[in-house]
């Protein structure tokens, strides 16, 4: 089809526009950095911008709010691309110094540079920070580099080029083949080949078809989809439009969690801007391809991340899963053929079309292609959002990118894939992170949440935490899931409270099997995973709780006992005065005693003791 715009020409114009911005100050404006004061920093830079007459090399300064860099731990991040410098942990008070010292007089502000935890050296450039250096970014390629709320900045870095190519070529089958050949699999959890999904839906071409984007990122501890929606919304829209073209859809929905207000705001603006320039909506770029996108806000239900439940929710119903088949590709939203893809999956699509299937397939492993984002959180030095080729090992992620375990503690386990995933231990550190290897180890890539736990984390308590989550979020449709998770939770609660029974381990395993077998959707089928994988790798810890009534990590309050070491206690009475329940007694200058019957294990005495005489065991 002929287009009425020349996207290359638009790109050139957009790049020119950026050049005309003069000196660019990039301020990260993701949810994390905004919480740390990014908006105040932008305002301050803009005020100073009025003084740009004093700049020698530029006649203008432009402050650009960008999307999430992923290095939230170090926020607020300020990048000066012209000076090849990244500043971390910037506060509004530092802005003037950056402006006066570095921007005006060329002298970097050393104290605001990133300090490498291993070498202790200051690092100037983003590319030299280990956290970034070891990453390969595809879905997140523009995050942090462009103004997240500006269409022309997206165009300048190649936005909508792939869509123009696809419409011009006018061959939906070619698009499907490209995606099939690239080996792209769903990034939302299940890992189903994206091209295949499209192929099934395209077979029903002719009538009304829907293209749905799943932005209901429910896994606690995962925030890659939020970052894409907030940081590069046009890429997602372009990916959706390409998918819609391939399957013959003219209408689409983005289902976004209500917990992501900023993502919703930026997506709304992006849709309006794209429609105005005819990159979305009716007769896109002058062709006869039409694709209209709506936003549906979720209302707080984890199960809506399941595709059939998500469709029920878009239709205005309770988000309860429906049996498959019929699969959405045949009978989906409002009874019509529908393709549902996750945000990250769709963000990969324009890049694949632009750079080719071969390029994408050259990254990753034999069976898992491309790159994957992981949300690295928990007890690791550098928490944040990362993107690496499939097959990167856990060790590389935790130690090279994550900078190792916080506070020099010992690595214990990592929970991967959220409440549906499993845990990996030290023996898995060199396991390649791809769909197949993880599945073999009893875990899953899932959405890519990676929560690192150290020796101070109680694994049984973590299993209880996940079970509490899935039990809360079970929609109640299937009895095994509704009742099974409840009973599993009850047992886990009993174990962490110190009342576990020896037969509990067998019962947990039996219940897990019933819940897995008897549930309709993935929520139920995977709900027992955290329990099963922790039982597999940390059975001793369960036994310690049940039989010895001890929590090896010292977390479970019920199993703690506080004791005053007689030889260390000076009898200062501080602990006795601090204890809220009067469980400590003794005379002045004599060793004190704790009445374990009365003690509520709050730990106040331990904090109050100036001689560190109180121990918790």
């Amino acid at each position, binding site marked *: 089809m002929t287009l009425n715009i020349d996207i290359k020409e638009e790109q050139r114009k957009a790049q020119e526009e950026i050049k005309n911005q003069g000196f660019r100050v990039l301020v990260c404006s993701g949810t994390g950095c905004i919480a740390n004061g990014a908006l105040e920093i932008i305002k301050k830079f803009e005020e100073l911008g009025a003084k740009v007459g004093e700049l020698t090399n530029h006649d203008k300064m432009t402050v650009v709010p960008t999307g999430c860099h992923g290095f939230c731990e170090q926020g607020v991040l300020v990048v000066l691309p012209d000076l090849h410098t990244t500043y971390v942990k910037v506060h509004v008070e530092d802005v003037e110094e950056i402006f006066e010292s570095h921007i005006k007089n060329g002298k970097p502000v050393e104290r605001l540079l990133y300090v490498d935890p291993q070498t202790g050296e200051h690092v100037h450039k983003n590319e030299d920070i280990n956290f970034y250096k070891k990453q390969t970014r595809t879905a997140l390629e523009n995050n942090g580099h462009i103004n997240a709320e500006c269409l022309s900045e997206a165009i300048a870095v190649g936005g909508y080029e792939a869509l123009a190519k696809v419409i011009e070529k006018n061959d939906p089958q070619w698009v499907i083949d490209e995606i099939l050949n690239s080996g792209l699999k769903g990034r939302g959890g299940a890992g189903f080949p994206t091209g295949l999904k499209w192929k099934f839906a395209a077979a029903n071409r002719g009538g009304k078809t829907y293209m749905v984007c799943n932005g209901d990122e429910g896994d*606690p501890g995962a925030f890659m989809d939020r970052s894409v929606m907030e940081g590069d919304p046009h890429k997602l829209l372009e990916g959706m439009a390409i998918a819609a073209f391939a399957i013959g859809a003219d209408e689409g929905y983005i289902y976004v969690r209500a917990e992501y207000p900023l993502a919703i705001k930026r997506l709304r603006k992006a849709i309006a801007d794209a429609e105005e320039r005819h990159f979305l909506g009716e007769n896109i770029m002058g062709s006869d391809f039409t694709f209209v996108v709506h936003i549906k806000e979720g209302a707080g239900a984890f199960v809506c991340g399941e595709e059939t439940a998500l469709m029920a929710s878009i239709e205005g119903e309770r988000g309860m899963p429906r049996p498959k088949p019929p699969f959405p590709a045949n009978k989906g939203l409002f009874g019509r053929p529908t393709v549902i893809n996750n945000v990250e999956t769709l963000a990969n699509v324009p890049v694949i079309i632009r750079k080719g299937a071969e390029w994408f397939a050259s990254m990753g492993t034999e069976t898992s292609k491309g790159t994957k984002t992981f949300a690295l959180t928990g007890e690791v030095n550098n928490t944040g959002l990362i993107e690496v080729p499939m097959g990167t090992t856990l060790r590389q992620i935790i130690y090279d990118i994550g900078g190792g375990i916080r506070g020099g503690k010992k690595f214990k386990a990592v929970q991967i894939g959220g409440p549906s995933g499993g845990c990996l231990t030290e023996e898995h550190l060199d396991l390649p992170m791809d769909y197949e290897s993880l599945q073999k180890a009893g875990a899953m890539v899932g959405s890519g949440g990676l929560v690192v736990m150290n020796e101070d984390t109680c694994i049984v308590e973590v299993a209880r935490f996940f079970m509490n989550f899935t039990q809360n979020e079970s929609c109640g449709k299937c009895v095994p899931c509704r009742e099974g998770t409840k009973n599993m939770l009850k047992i886990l609660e009993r174990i962490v409270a110190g009342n576990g029974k020896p037969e509990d381990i067998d019962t947990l395993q039996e219940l897990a099997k019933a819940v897995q077998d008897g549930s309709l959707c993935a929520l139920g089928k995977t709900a027992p995973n955290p329990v099963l994988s922790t039982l597999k790798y940390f059975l001793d810890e369960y036994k310690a709780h049940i039989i010895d009534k001890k929590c090896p990590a010292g977390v479970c309050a019920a199993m703690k006992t506080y004791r005053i070491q007689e030889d260390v206690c000076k009898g200062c009475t501080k602990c006795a005065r601090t204890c809220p329940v009067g469980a400590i007694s003794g005379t002045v200058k004599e060793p004190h005693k704790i009445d374990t019957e009365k003690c509520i294990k709050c730990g106040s005495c331990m904090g109050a003791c100036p001689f560190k005489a109180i121990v918790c065991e």
Partner: protein
Amino acid sequence: MTVTEQINIADVDKILETYEYKKSNLIAILQKVQEKYSYLPEKVMTYIGTKVKGVSPATVFGVATFYAQFSLDPQGKYEIKLCDGTACHVRGSMPVLNAVRKKLGLTPDKRTTDDGMFSLNIVSCLGACGLAPVVVINEKVYPKMTADAVKIALDTIINEEKGV
């Protein structure tokens, strides 16, 4: 003045009109109603059930109770969202939760203060895991919370309200 007296059905009609009385917009309609009243009054839910095509009051009630975002009781002026996602949990959201409850006299069953100033809701993940543990009070994000820090944050709000 009680809350029920403040409900003006004309406002609800306006919302219904915007969303074309469509069943597929039911969740959006309820979200707008909650935005207006801070909760979903029973009277309004029943009314919506009679107006939206293909929906009964029972369906409206079913949807309203299914999703965590909806509240059937009036919410406080300040909504505290305490994140207990995995990252926040591992980094100590529980002591923060206990501190908030203790400070405001709330319990798992009593989620709004008597003076109607604060409501406390535990949410599963706000996507700000790099800043764990996180608390959000009326859209403002408080990063890296501790029991002490959250008490200070609450005190600031309480003092502002008192005009101190």
